């Protein structure tokens, strides 16, 4: 079972690294933010697997915090950094 957990962790990490391409590529700010959100979900999955693997209860709390704060970051993005009006910043 331990070996399987490790394989799952490596697999999830590879997913995460693949998602980096979308952060780099964009094209819009929303795409980058989306990829970061996916990062959050994948990291939560990895942390709960690690909590089981290393028998560390506190890792589930790290997962809980990431789950909560990822949402706050995304709301900050929509409300502040990505206003309704077009700015010249999107012309990249």
């Amino acid at each position, binding site marked *: 079972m331990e070996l399987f957990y490790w394989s799952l962790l490596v697999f999830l990490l590879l997913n995460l690294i693949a998602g980096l391409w979308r952060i780099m590529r964009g094209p819009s700010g929303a795409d980058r933010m989306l990829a*970061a959100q996916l990062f959050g979900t994948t990291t939560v999955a990895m942390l709960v697997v690690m909590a089981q693997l290393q028998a560390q209860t506190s890792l589930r709390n790290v997962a809980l*915090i990431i789950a909560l704060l990822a949402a706050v970051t995304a709301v900050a993005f929509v409300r502040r950094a990505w206003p309704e009006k077009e700015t010249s910043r999107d012309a990249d």
Partner: protein
Amino acid sequence: MPLLFDSLLGLGGIWLAWQALSSDNLFRAIVLFVAFGLMLALVWVRLAAPDIALAEAAIGAGVTGALLLAALARLDVVVHEEATNPEPSQPSWHRPGSGFVALLTAGLFIALVYTLYHLPVDTPGLRRDVIAQLDNSGVRHPVTAVLLNFRGYDTLLEILVLLLALLGVGSLGKCHRQAVTATGPVLDALSRLLAPVLVLVAAYLLWLGASAPGGAFQAGAVLAAGGILLLLSGWRLPARFARWPWRLLLALGPVLFLVLALITLWLEGKLLQYPPAQAGGWILLIEASASLSIGAILVALFMGGDAEPEHKDE
């Protein structure tokens, strides 16, 4: 398998850090920085440091991302142009002095590898002393014992640094007030659901700090996330709280910590030397007030460091 995982994690982290620093699009740099924070939390977990992983998740990946995004939004108001570096985009290694920096960095890298290679394996460090004195510290978690009892003055100074940072940001002058735009039902529902959960989780982390990874800074960051979420969904501090009550809240943690330090100096003759019997209560008092202040300071930073935060006009 663990080795493969750790190598991927390490290389991924270094690559992310490099990309975040060298990105000429500020928004992309911020998103990469947030991703880097998540990666770093995993790194701390692999280094068997759950306390730091918790702090990194709350501060590095959470609140810092929101702070940076708010700063970027304000930049746009000021600059009115693309959020890219103003200088012409020549490759960074063509700038003068870069060779010197590269040499320095390489030298430092070699020195660090050499030092690391010659470090003794498995030294107990101060772990044994900490465990031996744990019963006198008032808490059951060694990290909390070190942070709030054995080396409490470090933590005291850290909180003061946060307050100082806020004063520094505030001294840069008034920043543009964020207009409240319509929120819509989904954001309203989300903030109503999440804000109480965030407060609850903050209290849980604070309480947990006595026996497991958790504590004031993590709890403060989660509280701040709740405050930031409320601000983003259009909530504003009522005007009657916006002046002195708010400033009191900002200073509560640092001031109480200082007062206790002076009291212990007077009673026990040593700075922050609590009597072992009451240490647990004292630590909880300090941590609770510190959490509140840290949360408030981070929220104030998000608002641009005004001493008088945005409030409703009554």
